[in-house]
């Protein structure tokens, strides 16, 4: 317990030092209009150092397994599950869908460079044209729109199958989400970090970091919380509880339901910002999608 508190203090101190760091680092220091300074590279290094101190035995790849990485019993469960993965059907359908030809003869490979091999590690990313965060699901729908196909529901089964296949094609690529030198991008990142780290949410009154940083691992209620590092690398993931594939954004919304957060304007945007922040601080963790979650 003392060690855990000490480690948390180290993280807090390193985050403070990040906040106090002089302008001009990776993502560009003080934004015009007096926005908070953000340094995603330093945040990522601090996050990795924190978890390395707490769980020295884990490799970066282990973090993509989420809660399964932190408990021997759960690790055994995952090994059993992966002998016959519950993502089997999603991947079979996803491969078929990914190979589909649109009405104008184009395929998804037309939209995504390298026939869609190795793109998942770059998402969610900041899209200046959109003026916000672009998830892989949005990119897929943009591709469909460009070739005159109707958009797919973002949290539907067809989209989940496609994302699973695209994730599989990017298997093992280190997460490479960066925050461009753009005041809006930095603001979204800072918002995601603030909501994740600091905001006490819902009637339960806990922040995301309470569970996924300080509280990562088996908790007092016998559920195991996934570490924040690499938490999105295994998404979309088959949720054995929900019995279907979930995107990272859908999973984050599930946390908010658990905390009894009353819906508010901008909630979906906050979920996107959190997903963006988590992906950016998880850089280097290999993509292992589609994953499995309890």
């Amino acid at each position, binding site marked *: 317990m003392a060690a855990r508190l000490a480690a948390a203090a180290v993280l807090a101190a390193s985050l403070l030092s990040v906040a106090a760091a002089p302008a001009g680092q990776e993502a560009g220091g003080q934004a015009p209009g007096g926005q908070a300074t953000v340094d995603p590279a330093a945040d990522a290094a601090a996050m990795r150092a924190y978890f390395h101190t707490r769980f020295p035995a884990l490799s970066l790849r282990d973090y993509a397994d989420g809660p399964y990485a932190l408990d021997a019993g759960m690790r055994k469960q995952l090994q059993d599950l992966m002998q016959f993965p519950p993502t*089997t059907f999603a991947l079979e359908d996803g491969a078929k869908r990914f190979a589909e030809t649109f009405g104008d003869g184009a395929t998804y490979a037309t939209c995504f460079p390298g026939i869609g091999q190795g793109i998942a590690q770059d998402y969610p990313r900041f899209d200046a044209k959109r003026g916000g965060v672009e998830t892989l699901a949005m990119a897929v729908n943009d591709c469909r729109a460009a070739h005159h196909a109707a958009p797919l529901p973002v949290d539907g089964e067809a989209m989940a199958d496609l994302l699973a296949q695209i994730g599989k094609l990017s298997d093992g690529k280190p997460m490479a989400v960066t925050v461009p030198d753009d005041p809006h991008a930095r603001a979204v990142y800072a918002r995601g970090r603030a909501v994740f780290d600091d905001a006490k949410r819902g009637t339960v009154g806990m922040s995301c970091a309470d569970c996924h940083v300080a509280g990562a691992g088996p908790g007092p209620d016998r559920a195991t919380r996934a570490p924040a590092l690499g938490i999105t690398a295994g998404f979309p993931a088959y949720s054995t509880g929900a019995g279907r594939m979930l995107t990272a954004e859908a999973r984050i919304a599930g946390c908010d339901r658990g905390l009894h957060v009353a819906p508010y304007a901008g909630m979906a945007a906050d979920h996107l910002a959190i997903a963006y922040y988590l992906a950016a601080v998880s850089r280097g963790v290999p993509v292992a999608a589609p994953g499995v979650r309890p």
Partner: protein
Amino acid sequence: MASTIRVRAIAADGNVEVQSLIRHPMDSGFMKNDKGQIIPAHFIQTVTFETKGKIVFTAFWGPAISKDPYLKFSYQGGAKGDPLTISWTDNEGMSDTLTTKVA
């Protein structure tokens, strides 16, 4: 259409370990669709595993079983190369069957 059944049967030390995954909605009859209408109950009622004319495993399932059910069991006396036939029938009279070889 591809088979709804995925199966892997591996012989080791006189036992055959079988793992299977069956694609089925397993609707309980209590869920509603996005228009608020009840989705009728639709679930697998029996699953059988048969090898060399002998049934080695039977399951009677109901609406409480999950979607795309996973099943794992082992039986004694099997050997590599044995045929293993899996079949299921559901409450709407639909069925599927697949024969594989023990590896």
